[in-house]
């Protein structure tokens, strides 16, 4: 299940990419739940929530990887202001679409909360906390070419 991180990836970017990949894997379940609750509107709303969750992870990771290259002080400021900016962006995104005919609040809310927490809990099992491979756990080496 684990992706193979490249050496150029910042740990948080590789984790965000892996989270997005996992979001794609579980997306059919939440899209079906959306359809079951509110038809096509629920489907689109669940899709929007999934996209927002993935975008939120990516933006957070990019902010950290950019800021840490400058200095640790910049990292502190960027993470805190980034948090405010990301919350603001999510609020704006919802305020734009909430009056649309297709927007269904309940599937959106369910998908947003469960996906965010569920993906994180799932990801913690696949994160490598080692000095050698920070970020996503490297894939196990293949034994196909092993010769005795």
């Amino acid at each position, binding site marked *: 299940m684990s992706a193979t991180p490249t050496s150029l990836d910042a740990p948080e970017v590789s984790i965000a990419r892996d989270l997005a990949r996992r979001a794609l894997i579980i997306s059919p379940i939440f899209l079906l739940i959306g359809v079951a609750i509110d038809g096509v509107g629920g489907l689109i709303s669940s899709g929007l929530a999934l996209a927002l969750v993935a975008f939120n992870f990516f933006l957070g990771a990019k902010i950290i990887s950019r800021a840490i290259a400058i200095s*640790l002080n910049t990292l502190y400021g960027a993470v*805190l202001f980034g*948090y405010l900016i990301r919350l603001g962006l999510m609020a704006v995104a*919802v305020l734009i679409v909430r009056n649309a005919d297709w927007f269904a609040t309940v599937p959106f809310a369910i998908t947003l909360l469960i996906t965010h927490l569920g993906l994180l809990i799932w990801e913690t099992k696949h994160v490598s906390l080692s000095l050698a491979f920070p970020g996503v756990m490297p894939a196990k080496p293949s034994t196909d070419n092993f010769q005795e």
Partner: protein
Amino acid sequence: MLNVLAETATGEMLEGLKAIGAGLGYGLAAIGPGIGIGTVVGNAISSMARQPESAGMVRTTMFLGIAFTEALALIGFVVFILLLP
């Protein structure tokens, strides 16, 4: 006529109060995670300053910690959406 006006005003006032409540709720819900994220990043920075060689590991933990803390703000966000008139 007056009754109709009073009912309309009450309805509009209710809508306005709901909107104010939603905004206040979202803002208040964002305070706790803000403090939490500050703590997470502050401790991560002091770890990286003490042991720069462990920066990669600390960044991994920090990113997940920030994301978990942010889930609390998302709960406030969901309440905000549900309360909006």
